[in-house]
Each structure stands twice: as C-alpha cells, then as structure tokens.
C-alpha cells in the first residue's frame, strides 16, 4: 500500500474520531447542565468572567 494511502486513512480516522467525540460532547450537553456550546462564544463567557443576568 502506498504511503499516501496510509496517511489518508489515518487523517480520515482522526477526523471521524474528532467528529464522534464532538457529537458525544454535544449529546452530553443535551442534559440540563449549566454550560453551552463554545462555538457561539457564550460558553467561554460563562467560564471566564461573570455573566450579567
């Protein structure tokens, strides 16, 4: 097997692993906890500084 094919396989596996772990984290956030997605910025806000009600 060509080296390029092996590298591609590893990269795809890593991407799948990342996507699955992201989905797993997201599914955990479906429960009623006090956190939110980091991708919108509000998660970081609540972590780092006080939130104005």
């Amino acid at each position: 097997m060509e080296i390029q094919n092996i590298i591609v396989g590893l990269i795809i596996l890593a991407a799948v692993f990342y996507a699955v772990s992201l989905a797993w984290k997201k599914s955990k956030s479906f429960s009623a906890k006090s956190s939110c997605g980091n991708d919108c910025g509000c998660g970081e806000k609540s972590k780092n500084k006080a939130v104005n009600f």
Partner: protein
Amino acid sequence: MNKNRINSVDLKTTDFPADKDRNPPERYSSGVKSNNKNSRLVVALSGNPNAGKTTLFNALTGMRQKVANYPGVTVERKEGFWKLDKTESAALLIDLPGLYSLDAASIDEQIARDVLTGKLKNLRAPDIIVAVVDATNLERNLYLVTQLLEYKIPVVVALTMTDSAAKQKIGIDIKKLSRLLKVPVIAVNASQKKGLSELSEFVLNAVGSDLHIPTELISSEEDSGNSKIFIRYNFISQVFQETIKSKEPFVKTVSEKIDAVLTHRFFGLIILVGILLFVFQAIFSWANVPMDLLERGFGGLGDLIRSNLSPGLLNDLLVDGVIAGVGGVLVFLPQILLLFLFLSLLEDTGYMARAAFLLDRLMRGVGLHGKAFVPLLSSFACAIPGIMATRTIEDRRDRLATILIAPFMSCSARLPVYGLMIATFFAGQTIFGFISLGAVLMLSMYALGIIVAVIVAFILKRTLLKSPPPPFVMELPPYRMPNFRTVFQNMFTRAGLFLKRAGTTILAISIILWGLTAFPRYDVQAANSEVQSQIETSASVNNKETSKTDNGNESADTLQLENSYAGKLGHFIEPVIRPLGFNWKIGVALIASFAAREVLVSTLSIIYNVGKDSNEESDTLIKAVREAKNDDGSPTWTPLTALTLMVFFVLALQCMSTVAVVRRETNSWGWALFMIGYMTAIAYFAAFITYQGGRFLGFS
C-alpha cells in the same frame, strides 16, 4: 424617559468618603459578626440589571468565585469569597440575579426571594444585603431597595456609576440618602477599586445591627398590594427630591432630541431600513477585495501542493478536501468581520435599543412579550445566546414562544451561504441604478426570517401557548460615542470563533466528506471506456451534448462521485428534494449542512472539485457553481435555485448546538423535536413555493 437626568453641579456630595467620614454612624456599629458563630458570614449582592453589580462582585471576589445553577432551574448562581478584612475569614458573597423588584413574577425574582428568606437548600438566609444602586437611575433603583428593607436583614447601599452621574451633572447627597433610608450608603467605583475597603468596613459594622425601617415604608397588614406599591413610590419620590441636587431646570437632552426622529413611528422605520441596506451594501462591496485575495491565496496554495506533492490520494485530500473545503468557508471571513463591526457599532451607540423600540409594536401585536426583543436581537449573531437570554421572560409560555422563533433570525453561520448564492447569481446588479441587488436580497432574507417568526409567534400565542402579553416598559440608554476598543474586541472575538470553527468542525467534516466522495474507489479506466460508450450512444441517438462529453477526466470524476458513498446518499434523498429544484449533489451538501450551516459551502467546494484544475478561470467555487450541469446538460444552478436554497436556509433548523440548548432550556425533548419538525416543514414548504412559484411565473 430618564427622570433622573437633572442638571446639577454639586458633585462634592458624590465624592468618595474622606477619612473623617469613613467611620459609619454609630447605630450600625453593634459589632455582631454573624447570626451564626459557627458559620461563614453570608452576604447577598442585589441590584437592578446593569447597575454595576457584576463589576462590583468581580472586584470584591477577584478570582475566588464559582458559577453553578440554582437547583432545578437555569438561573445562574454565582458565589465568591470576599475578604472583608485581614482578621476576618472571607465572607461568602452571593450575586443575586439582576432584578427590578422582588414581586416574584419571573424565575429570577423567585430565586432572589428564596435566597433572602433562606428557603434554598444548603444556603441559609444572608446575614447582610449589599444593595447596588445606580446613581444615574436613583429613583428606579430605589424601588428594589425599599423592598429589600422589608426583609428584616441589614442592608448596605453601594452607590455605583457616580462618575457617570457627575458627567450628567447629577448631584446626590449621600449622607442625607443614608439618613432617609436608615442604612449606610457608600459610593464605590469597582473598576478603579475605589470605596471597596470602606464598603467592607460598613458591612462588618452593619452585620447584626438594630434594624430601622423608615416609618414612611411601614404598611399595615390590611394594605393591599397596590397600596404597598403606592407607599413605596411615595417614599422614593420624597427621598429623590431631598437627595438629588439640581440647580438648573430639566431640559431636553441631545438623546431625546435624536430620539424624536429615530424612534418616529414612520420616519424611524424608514431610517432603520436605510441603515440596514447600507450595512448589507457595505458588507458586499467592502469585502470584495479581501475575499478575492483570500480566494486567490487558497487557489495558489492548492496549486503549490498539487505541483509539489506526487499525485495520489493524499494530494487529492489536501487540495480537494482540506483546502477547497476549509478555504471555501474562510473566504467569507471579511464579510463576517464587517457584519460584526456594524452590529457592534449599532449596539454600542445605543441604536439597537431604538431598533427594538421601533419593532415593539409589531411584536406586541402578535402577542410576544416586550422582553423578547433582546433574545431575538442576540439571535442575529447566534441563536444560542439568544435562547439563553429568554431566561428574563417571566411567563413560561411567552418564554417558550420566544425560544421557538429565535432560530428564524438569520445568524452569522448563514452569511457564507447567502454570500455564495448572491455573489454567484446576483453580483453587480443594481436596483434604481445605485442600490445593490445583493444587499436588497440579503435584507430580504433577514426580513423573511423576522416575518415568518412573527407569523409563527402569532399562531403559537393563540393556540399552544395562549396567554395575554404582560405590560412592558423599555429603557432606552442615552446615545454615546462607541467605544472602539469594545467594538473591535467584539469583532475579533467573533472572527476568532469563526476561525476556530473552520479549523475544527468544518475541517473534520470536510475531511470526512472528501472521504465519502472518494470511496469506494471507482475504476478510472473503466469509467473512461464507459464515458466513451456513452458519447457514442448519445451521439447516435441524438446530437444533444452532455457535460460528460466535454472532458474525459471530468466525467471520470463525476462517475467517481456518483458511485461514492456521498453520491449514493445524495441519490437516496433526491426524490424528496427534486421538487425544490435541487439535484443529488445539492442533496449531499444539504445533509452535511445539518451539522453546521456553513458546511454547505465547503461541501459544494469538495463536490465541484474546486482546486482540481489549475486553470485560473475555473478554480473558484462561484465559477464551479455557475458551470455545474445536470446529467441532461441543463444547468444545476439558476438564480431561482439559488433563491430557493437561501429561503430554505433562512427557515430550516440546521444547527445541532441550537437543538441542544433548546432541550436544556425547555427541559423537554418534546419541544426540541417539535422545533426541528416544524421548522424543517416550514423551510421545505417555503422553498417549494419559491421554486414552483418562480417556475410558474416563468423564471428558470
């Protein structure tokens, strides 16, 4: 509006205490440190929203704080440790939600009442309350103080925003205020750490002291709720008149003069539409050059890798998967930056509140609560903070209605999709010779989201979530020069989040999608011979040319894609999306975009092999989309298809994070699933009407 805006120059009364004034009055100095000798002193911090409570909390506790939720609800519970003096152990400081009153109408108010009465599990009633009072809005802030005084817990008033009050020429006689309220009052400036040690001193001395409620506030048991409110306001009026020093009569401020025009029920709306048109026009025209540069940059990077790396799967993955996928989304960064620059400017100048005020009549007309504005406005950036901001809405049904319509507001993730479609089919076209068609279309997409949200709210508030809208008073902040540091900070924070998303989620999805389009491998030799036979068959049957005849390699790529996992998935859903004018390739992009909306752009880049050809004329996604053909040779994309896709994206809920937040905020799977279902149905129906209606009217 703001009755407190009184012209006075007596600023000495709001100065920070001189040494001689530092000792609090004797009656607060009984010296009892806590109700319970064995436990830590508990101090509750209470005040109106935006009174500077959080800044004071941060200044008092530093990094010694923790954030959690109150049990069973999504109201945030913030606690920290406040070192009152060197000898005392640190007090537990509880930051109560920002409140206007303690009437227990909203969840926040109920929680605050429960904290003050010690009804919460694992948290006893506070030993003392620090009431944060905004000096520029004394009259309004004092209402909460009068209610706090009734809880039979010592209160210390921390007067904030005294510098702003001084600028507005509001003079407050602090000593008199303290005498009338019968509690210690201290001016603090948390950001400059002024008055904090004095506040600690006042708190230590006031704990366990004798309580003296002003006689004017004492009401009998027979007094009704309304008469109690009347008694409080009478007292506040008296305190206000005796403590605020004014030397000049009340005059109309500049803000009020500007508001006469900008909040005019007719001209105000015209100005609002004009401002939004300008914003969108600027986004398109100003972002052109940097977007073009970025596009060329990614094209050049792709060519560099293509020519320096030996041909093979890795070469294809890097160029067609990573660079085309992530680069396709990243070229929209200038538009995102400009959008947030304008949103931050409008917010920081105070105009956003006016826009909300202008649309208030419309919202009230459909039965939505006035407080729904802030969550809906936030949703233009991202639906997640918007949905979280609905916590301030008291009525559960009003709150649910707002949550259910928030994702209709066009968030920044939709911008790359709108940007691609507009740039491909409507760029350079104008209306009346000067208004960009792209800007008008963009504004129309934002307006479509608002209109559908209003219609849905109207229906929900008359069926599933029936309840009368409560009265609402909106506070308009004064106009001010924007703080450019805040504006740019906000802009770059958003840009950072966009880049982070592109470098993580979109990168991973691009790689996976490339894998789905590249596997299983299709035999190119067999493909080419199949193409040749198709050419011959096609030529012998009729003279119609198909795209497959143009280029052998392109045909092999098409066959590879068609026979890949992604191709099979696209073909599977094609019958459902065909009535919308979408073929199976768009279907693949649509499925992928349910993870995140921007993924549509990266998927199209991968599907159309952007970057495959080194020919400069054909290496952009825009060109690839324009030239894409169906199997019968007809163009895949037309202006009507582009419009239909945009309509679908305005209305569909394609964001897993939003679903997660809805589930959490409503504490129900039912509402989250209902939201996915009804939004997808509306999106499909609206896209169907757009496409079929357009065709019926003769558009292609």
